[in-house]
């Protein structure tokens, strides 16, 4: 299977969308008038890129040098060595331990992105995608999603790139355009390739879900949480909907405290922002009166979606030109809203601190999706650790040792046989020690510990294969060993031995006169 087309009229973007939507793996070749770029995709994400004008290895060297990870001289040595050995320069850098794996993989990702930008910069030419073909790439690189590439390309390439218009910000509010008269087709459901037609919009599955989700106006950040998509997928999906004429965007207008002269001592909380988003949505939906209360308790995030809840707004805050005294960060009296007809975008990098200080700790904005990722990572590791602990406990406690070798229920008899053989081997060892002891000291030991002290057996030989303690009892002529848990009448697992038939330990056995007295002898020779 292959995708082919020309670069004109966003053909490359459509191809990238299809590759991403179907999770294709393969090699995309973009032939422009000025350059030739090849990109390797794995499961719809870009993992490597190469360009004729700027070969992959050299581009990686630039990135490493720019990030201060490796000097050009060191990289050149590694590059020459890699060319003679036929491996990737990145692999050579790793094998020489010039850069740690994590930073190197990030540098490779950065280099891939840069060369993808080169491909997106090409305006004239053609592209082709060969499914399942690939060029060498560094394993372990986090694939670049197509949506991330396209969204970032808007910022990095601007008008030089193939993307038209601006991509919505995460704080923007998206509303559907009713009765647009555009026929919607979904990739995969209605076709495997985007075919440009007037009045027809091709959407990916993500975009289709986004369109369903904005049946009423919603902030992009809420969509991000509702659909459990990352910000790039949401932003690119919304961009596609807007470009297709299916949705419109308006910026959320929350004024900066600096603009109003209010100087709270702590940054705005996510909850505060979300409350304002809801207010903005309400305003867009019907222009009802919006009011904020001075209730210090922030609304839970889960409540934000319910726009029917009454929200009160203390208008006096708008009239108060003086800065409010510092108080709890969750206190809405610390905030102010600009007039709704003068929207101002909240810049997360703006400082809320007074005066000349522009330094401010970065606000962590962990989405529910990212939180779930963190939970997933640690859950996976915790499960693995738990499993290893279960195995070790089976090994150490002894109760389940035979279950390690015979884990299935249908091997129960073989398991019993194994335990029996193991117990027999313990008895054999003890027997050897006991007889040697008797040979030297003329009697059986009182307890097995004596044999351990003499090193005739090991300490672990005092325990059976299932970890059960072995009790030992002896008299002048016999000894008995058995697992302590076994009752006296359960003689299958016990071991009774004596000196009676041991010619070295029992002098009576070799007394031939006894035998003669027991039984008459007939001389027949």
């Amino acid at each position, binding site marked *: 299977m292959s995708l082919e087309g020309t670069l004109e009229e966003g053909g490359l973007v459509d191809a990238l969308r299809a590759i991403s939507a179907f*999770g294709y793996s393969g090699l995309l070749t973009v032939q422009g008038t000025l350059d030739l770029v090849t990109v390797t995709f794995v499961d*719809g994400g870009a993992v490597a890129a190469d360009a004729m004008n700027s070969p992959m290895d050299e581009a990686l060297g630039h990135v490493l040098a720019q990030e201060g990870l490796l000097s050009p001289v060191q990289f050149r040595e590694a590059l020459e060595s890699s060319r003679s050995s036929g491996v990737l320069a990145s692999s050579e850098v790793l094998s020489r331990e010039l850069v740690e794996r994590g930073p190197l993989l990030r540098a490779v990702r950065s280099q891939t992105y840069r060369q993808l930008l080169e491909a997106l910069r090409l305006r004239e030419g053609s592209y082709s995608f060969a499914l399942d073909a690939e060029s060498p790439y560094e*394993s*372990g690189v*986090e*694939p670049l999603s197509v949506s991330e590439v396209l969204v970032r390309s808007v910022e990095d390439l601007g008008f030089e790139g193939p993307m038209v218009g601006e991509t919505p910000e995460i704080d923007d509010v998206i509303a559907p355009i009713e009765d647009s008269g555009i026929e919607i087709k979904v990739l*995969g459901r209605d076709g495997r390739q985007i075919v440009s037609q007037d009045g027809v919009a091709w959407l990916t599955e993500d975009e289709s879900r986004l369109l369903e989700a904005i049946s009423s106006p919603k902030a992009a950040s809420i969509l991000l949480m509702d659909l*459990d998509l990352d910000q790039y997928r949401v932003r690119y999906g919304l961009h596609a909907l807007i470009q297709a004429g299916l949705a419109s965007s308006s910026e959320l207008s929350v004024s900066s405290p600096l603009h109003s002269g209010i100087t709270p001592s702590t940054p705005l909380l996510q909850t505060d922002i979300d409350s304002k988003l809801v207010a903005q949505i309400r305003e867009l939906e019907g222009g009802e009166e919006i009011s904020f209360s001075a209730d210090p308790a922030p609304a839970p995030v889960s409540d934000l979606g319910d726009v029917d809840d009454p929200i009160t707004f203390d208008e006096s805050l708008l009239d108060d030109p003086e800065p409010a005294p510092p108080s709890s960060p969750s206190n809405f009296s610390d905030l102010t809203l600009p007039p709704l007809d003068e929207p101002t975008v909240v810049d997360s990098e703006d400082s809320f601190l007074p005066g000349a200080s522009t330094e401010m700790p970065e606000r962590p904005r962990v989405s*529910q999706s990212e939180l*779930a*990722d*963190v*939970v*997933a*990572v640690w*859950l*996976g590791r915790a*499960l*693995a650790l*738990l499993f*290893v602990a*279960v*195995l070790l406990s089976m*090994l150490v406690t*002894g109760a389940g040792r035979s*279950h*390690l*070798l*015979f*884990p299935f229920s*249908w091997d129960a*008899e*073989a398991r019993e*046989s*194994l335990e029996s*053989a*193991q117990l*027999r*081997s313990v008895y*054999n*060892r003890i027997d*050897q020690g006991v*007889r*040697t002891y008797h*040979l*030297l000291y003329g009697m059986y030991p009182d307890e097995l510990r004596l044999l351990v002290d*003499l*090193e*005739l057996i090991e300490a672990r030989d005092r325990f059976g294969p299932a970890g059960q303690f072995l009790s030992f009892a002896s008299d002048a002529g016999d000894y008995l060993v058995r697992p302590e848990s076994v009752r006296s009448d359960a003689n299958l697992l016990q071991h009774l031995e004596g000196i009676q*038939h041991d*010619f*070295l330990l029992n002098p009576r056995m*070799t*007394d*031939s006169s006894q*035998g003669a007295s027991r*039984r008459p*002898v007939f*001389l027949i*020779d």
Partner: protein
Amino acid sequence: MSRRRGSVSRSVWTKSLLFVIAWSCSGALPAQDSDDTIALSAPVLQTLAKLQDEWLVWNSAFLQDDEVAASAAVDDMLASAEQLGFSSIADVHHGVLLSAVEAAREGNFAKARWALGMAERLDRGQPETEFARGRVETLEGNRLAAVGAQLRGVWATATDRRMGRLFLYNVQIWLLVSLLLTSAGYIALQMATKGPHLYREVVNWLGRLMPRMVALVIAGAFLLWPFLLPRGWAWIVIYWAALLWGYGSSSEKWATALALIFLGLVPIAVRAQQAGLIMALSPEQKAIDGIVEERLYGTLFEDLARLDGRLPDSVAADHLLADVHVMLGQRELARPRYSSVADAEPDNGEALNNLGVFHLMRNEHARAIPFFESATAIQNSKLAAAYNLAQIYSERLEISNSEQQLSIARSVDAGTVSQWIAEQRRFVPLQGGFERIGAIREELRGQLAPAVLMDQWRSWGRSILVSLGAIGVGFLLQLFRSRSGAWRGLQTEPVTWLGRAAQWSIPGFISAEAGDGGRAFVALLVPVTALVLPISGLLSYRMPWSFGPGPTLVWGSALVVLALFFAWRWKYR
């Protein structure tokens, strides 16, 4: 004629000569006949009693630190054993070793050394001698020499006929457990590195049907529930392997398939060694080994009686015990057994020949001739029977018949016949029973091993089916996933000091993250194999050593391997 043991190597001729001497010196009648031991004649009992006395003499000499007297006692004991056809005395050997170590504990290392030398004479090439020597060296402070002795002991164990078998089973268990734990560990690694993707996908899927928090919890339970199965670790491996199948690279799929196959094969392999193992641990096998290796031990005669009792209808066992009686010099006790062998196997040339020898020794020529004539007709006894027949005709002055039989014997092996004539052999007995030990072992295996162990195919089918089933389910799940196209990977991969520590310290973690299944499996296999070495004793069979190597050797070896492994990782990763 195939009896052979360790470093004690005698020529076939010497052995044959001893067998002839045993025939010649046989006692007249048994003085004791018991069901608990094989019948022993009065001369044999007297020799055994003499051995007891000589052991006491040695003990006395040892206590008096009299090396000369002790050495003489050892000579006497070996001579007594030699009379019964044995070249070593196992239990006395163990007693001397214990005495040597005791002397070393008291600080008398010179005494310990000469005792060790005597122990070596009493039973040559035994691993326990080296282990006891290692202990003495340790007590004396010679650590390096102690390690050398222990390594020699391990080598002696591996090459010893009796212990080597059990040692081999233990090595198998060690490797199998290592493979099993590596396979399980590999799947755990997959869960640690690919599990998060699986979890997120399950959460996403469930999230369409229920609130997100509930989905998070149910997805966790979805991965955790096999822990509730009692000792169901294998099902966890199978379950996770099937779920994670689609998240791995090609090499990871191969490695996962390999892990699942090991999981199925290991129980089969352990089951396969069980029958042989039960044999190796049985007193009957110990008795056979004692006879073959000419090693006399305290309960040998009891164990031989057990063998007789275990195989009452075995012709091969009868034949062996007949030879044993001859070896002990109990000719009269051997004859009925040879008769029963000849009755059961009319073509048994060795038994027929030996019955003829029995009558020849009693000058019952007329009764001997038919046996020899029958034996002459059988190829493997033709040489000896024709020679014996020639001897009879010669004694009866039937020269032409004698020469005719001699020429028949020469036609088989002229050199051997010339040697017999040069040695003035009156008769030549044959030891056929010792050559039937393989058949006796097979009969014993059938008697000792439980029937369930012989039914291998049922277990094979189930275990392999489970492994292949897991691979099949994994493949189907992957198909389902690729169609749904739900998963696009995690967006967050937190790198913390703990994560870095895990990457460095857990072998195979980095390779598993990079999707290199083969490297991850091998990286895990090496340290797991090293770690399992010292603890494999918990799962394996105890060696019947009187002195063992102790835990230092295995722990030391394991730590050295682990140190080398992590040093290699440090240098090349």
